């Protein structure tokens, strides 16, 4: 683990740099409060801006039917690609998201009307009437939405990227025992997953059949996390549906490859009194589900939190509107970006590591302990 950190990030030089930034912040902290005082004078305008930023962050965290590169709220102009919408509503309905005109108009398909409200598609009438309950939640019918959303496009891009990279690495062995080009960088990571994640947690005997899943999930999460750091503004691993899917796969693989010993430990814990076994069984069964659940929440929460904090600080730059506050926000955002780079790798590592650990439990043999 330590090796992993030091490889990626915490070289002394960089740590020094972060320390310097933190010291700078401490020095300028009083000025920041002064800057905030000044802010109250133009409160009316900035209040609106704050809400705008908050809305923007919330919007960014969610999936979207547009691959938006940039947009301007005031002029209402968007630069991006509308993605295909696929609905299951008494038959498959496919149309371009451009028909919604960014939520401004109702899309009419085969005599049915659909409206886009907070990135979700609802069935509506020709006027686009939305009904709300007392909590301000829409009560309109939601058709099953299988759209190729921004997150799906990003996952496809990452899949293609991974295929190109690792196919290239695999092919580069045909010209000799050492990889060439990008493989020089990725091969040690593949070996890392094998030697530091798979073998220690699963064991020499069984690790091979889990390698494909572990390697794919490690690079998939890592690349998606890193893409989340780019100005493309994607947030795939910070989406609960995605992390649910990944955690579900870990759960299914654990459950379906488990041996007798694993089930024995859950329903009839060896080595404890009979009464305790009865008490432990439901706890262990609950644990079966809590383990992948924690995987899902950990990745989701870490990535979402990272995006929220980073974007909030970037938003602060625009709120301060003075060179001290904005500069400090920039410095902070920069330092946090570096931290997020670490988190991107770390979360991929943790997800893979824990998955391997659960697989190891499923394959643990009686005389192993």
């Amino acid at each position, binding site marked *: 683990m330590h090796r992993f950190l030091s490889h990626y990030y915490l070289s002394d030089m960089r740590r020094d740099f972060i320390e310097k930034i933190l010291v700078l912040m401490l020095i300028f902290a009083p000025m920041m409060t002064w800057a905030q005082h000044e802010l109250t004078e133009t409160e009316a305008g900035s209040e609106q801006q704050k809400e705008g930023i908050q809305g923007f962050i919330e919007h960014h965290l*969610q*999936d979207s039917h547009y691959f938006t590169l940039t947009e301007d709220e005031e002029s209402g102009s968007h630069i991006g690609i509308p993605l295909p919408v*696929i609905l299951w509503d008494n038959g498959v309905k496919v149309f371009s998201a451009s028909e919604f005109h960014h939520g401004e108009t109702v899309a009419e398909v085969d005599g049915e009307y659909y409206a886009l409200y907070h990135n979700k598609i609802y069935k509506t009438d020709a006027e686009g009437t939305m009904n709300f309950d007392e909590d301000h*939640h829409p009560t309109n019918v939601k058709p*099953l*939405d*299988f*759209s*190729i*959303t921004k*997150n*799906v496009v990003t*996952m*496809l891009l990452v*899949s293609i990227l*991974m*295929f190109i990279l*690792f*196919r290239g*690495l*695999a*092919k580069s*062995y045909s010209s000799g*025992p*050492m990889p060439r080009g990008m493989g020089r960088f990725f*091969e040690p990571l*593949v*070996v890392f997953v*094998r030697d530091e994640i798979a073998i220690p947690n699963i064991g020499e005997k069984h690790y*091979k059949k889990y*390698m*494909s*899943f572990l*390697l*794919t*999930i490690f690079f*998939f999460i890592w690349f998606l996390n890193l893409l989340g750091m780019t100005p493309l503004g994607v947030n795939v691993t910070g*989406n*609960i*549906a*995605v992390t*649910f*899917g*990944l955690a*579900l*796969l870990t759960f299914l693989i654990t459950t379906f490859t488990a041996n007798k010993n694993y089930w024995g430990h859950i329903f009839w814990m060896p080595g404890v009194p009979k009464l305790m076994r009865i008490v432990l069984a439901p706890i262990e069964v609950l644990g079966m589900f809590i383990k992948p659940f924690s995987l899902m929440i950990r990745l989701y929460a870490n990535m979402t939190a990272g995006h929220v904090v980073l974007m909030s600080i970037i938003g602060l730059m625009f709120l301060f509107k003075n060179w001290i506050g904005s500069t400090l926000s920039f410095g902070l955002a920069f330092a946090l970006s570096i931290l997020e780079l670490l988190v991107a790798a770390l979360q991929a590592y943790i997800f893979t590591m824990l998955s391997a650990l659960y697989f190891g439990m499923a394959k643990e043999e009686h005389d192993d302990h």
Partner: protein
Amino acid sequence: MEKLIEQFSFGLFFWQILIFVLLVLVLRKYAWKPILNAVNEREEGIKSALESAEQARKEMENLQADNQQLLKEARAERESMLKEAREIKEKMIADAKGQAQEEADKMIRQAQATIQSEKQAAVSQLKKEVASLSIEIAEKVVKEELSSKDKQLKLVDDMLNDVKLN
């Protein structure tokens, strides 16, 4: 939590599972297996190369030890051969000396015996000579002396006495 469930998009979940499972299957066939095999092969290669190097080193050591042993044995053999040769030489010398001594002794003994027998012969010869000479002398004396009876008798007596003395 409620918000999370509300945010949950089944469509995205569906695509995610589909894409990911396909990605695992495709990468397993086209990337992970060849990569891991190549890495394994290389590691095995390195391992076996190291092992054979170690083997060669051990063999070399054994060979050297063998050589050392051979050298030692050869040296010991040479040593023993030299020793044997020396012993043989000494024995030969001793034997030769003994033989020579014996020969010499024998020769001396023979010489002595010869001398003895020669002496014996000489003495007997001498005795014969003396006897004949004596007889001649006696003849002459007798011829001269035996001119008178007295003289003859006296001579006989004297001569007899002489002979006894001898």
